[in-house]
């Protein structure tokens, strides 16, 4: 079982609130999954060190540095819930100087 603190930690990493009633379930379920995941440590890779990030064999390509068609501001803002003119409104992310 995971502790309540550990559940809080992983939930915080994933930017998720956890309801009081959910702790018990997550403590067990996350423990179960992590126990399964730990099996990866025991896999014998026979000294292999090379990693595989993606099956793609594409070489790095660069796109032309030219201006192409762009999305309109109204399209971009269409799905945002809080807007003001051409801007998306979010809660303040920097504190007042006296609060620092």
């Amino acid at each position, binding site marked *: 079982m995971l502790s309540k603190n550990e559940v809080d930690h992983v939930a915080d990493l*994933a930017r*998720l609130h956890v309801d009081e009633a959910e702790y018990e379930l997550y403590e067990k379920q996350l423990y179960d999954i992590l126990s399964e995941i730990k099996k990866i440590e025991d896999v014998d890779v026979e000294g292999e060190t090379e990693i595989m*990030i993606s*099956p793609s064999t594409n070489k790095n390509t660069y796109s032309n540095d030219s201006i192409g068609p762009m999305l309109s501001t109204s399209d971009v803002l269409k799905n945002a819930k809080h807007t003001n003119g051409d801007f998306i409104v979010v809660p303040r992310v920097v504190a007042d100087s006296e609060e620092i």
Partner: protein
Amino acid sequence: MTKYLDLSIKEINELLKDKKIKPIDLVNEAFERIEASDLNAFITLNKEEAIKEALELENKEIDNILFGIPVAIKDNIVTKGLRTTAASHILDDFNPIYDAEVIKKIKDKHMIIVGKTNMDEFAMGSTGETSYFGNTLNPWDKKMVPGGSSSGSAASVGARLVPIALGTDTGGSIRQPSSFCGVVGLKPTYGRVSRYGLIAFASSLDQIGPITRNVYENALMLNVIAGQDDKDMTSSYEEVKDYTCLIGEDVKGMKIAIPKFYMSETIDKEVRDKVENVTKILKDKGCTVDYVDMKYVSSAIPLYQVIALGEASSNLARYDGVRYGYVTKDFKDINELYKMTRYEGFGREVKRRLMIGSYILSGKNADKYYRKALIVRKKLTDEFKSILSKYDLIIGPTNTNVAYPIGTKLDDALKSFYDDLLTIPVNMAGLPAMSLPIGFKNGLPVGMHIIGNYFSEEEIYKLGSFVEKELNLNLDPRGDK
């Protein structure tokens, strides 16, 4: 009720060319069927637009075999102006402002999109039950799960609501439901089909592919969606073939491998027997069929959990309640906006996976789990490559068993991963693979896996069409119609 949609694509195309029917007849019939169905296979219908398009097609020249054919799209593929939810509350009012590359290709061929199909939320699940919009039912038995995550796409083709659907496959999400619903589903080679406009789950595993009633029509659909796309940097420059080119060719002399792991005790006996039956047919026809050892396939589940969930935690960080999607009502600062939006917007399966994924990539765990998993992935892929250097194809069961009752695995955090035991290794290596119906157990379809070499989908279709013809199964769940 008309029954044009029971005909093959070829026959429908002939009728259209002879002007005996019009695209609107097909669209009307598709909606009659969808509206009469209680499978909950669709999240959003595109009726008004589909009818409009069908009428417009009456003035257009029939320039290809899929002209006017109704198609259903999994709801994690974005469609301009048509709601796209990924079956999540967090996107339940999301209206995309562009079309995915595959949608553009479908529209270029004048196929008609009838709606967006139900699925596991963000493609996370193997039963269709994690959808915010309720689970889809299996057309063969409504008490059973249809499989997932492309639950609605497989069920709608299985039930003959539409002839073709698109699904997506990250760990088995096309093949597993195709197997449970008795349809043909192909996960193409990684990079064969553009992922531009596919709502990302695990970017190094995700691939879009066709779900159809038979092998030939599957190849026709791959012909439409395959191809390089500058907007997806992992999409391949490998030449696109006519994927129907080997259908009907003699299979004599084909070399086929069966990994012993795929036929071990973990797999249901009756399912193994069905595969054995096919093996016998293939040997009789002059194929070589050998059992082979694979060491790393047995690590598929933890491997998938590390890689898929790690990538998912990064991809799903974008759902912050700021630019699109659901936003919580009450928040006092930015952190609470994020946390409450995500808490209220995501379902439990998704939240569980995001917590695990974030944990795996944090601090020292990245080396301990993620890096190690990437090494195992390399070893597993090398193992596949080595087998495919000696054999044309690999076969085995798609699943450990047939469809099971709804509710069986819903609250078990681990069991749903085990459904993908045999399909996950293929995504890790990026190989193409099909699920093909090869029989029934207690009236429920059994699927066989055909795994091919990179960019050799035509070989899979060759063997698949041969087996399909030999078995000649009745794959219509409506009985005598």
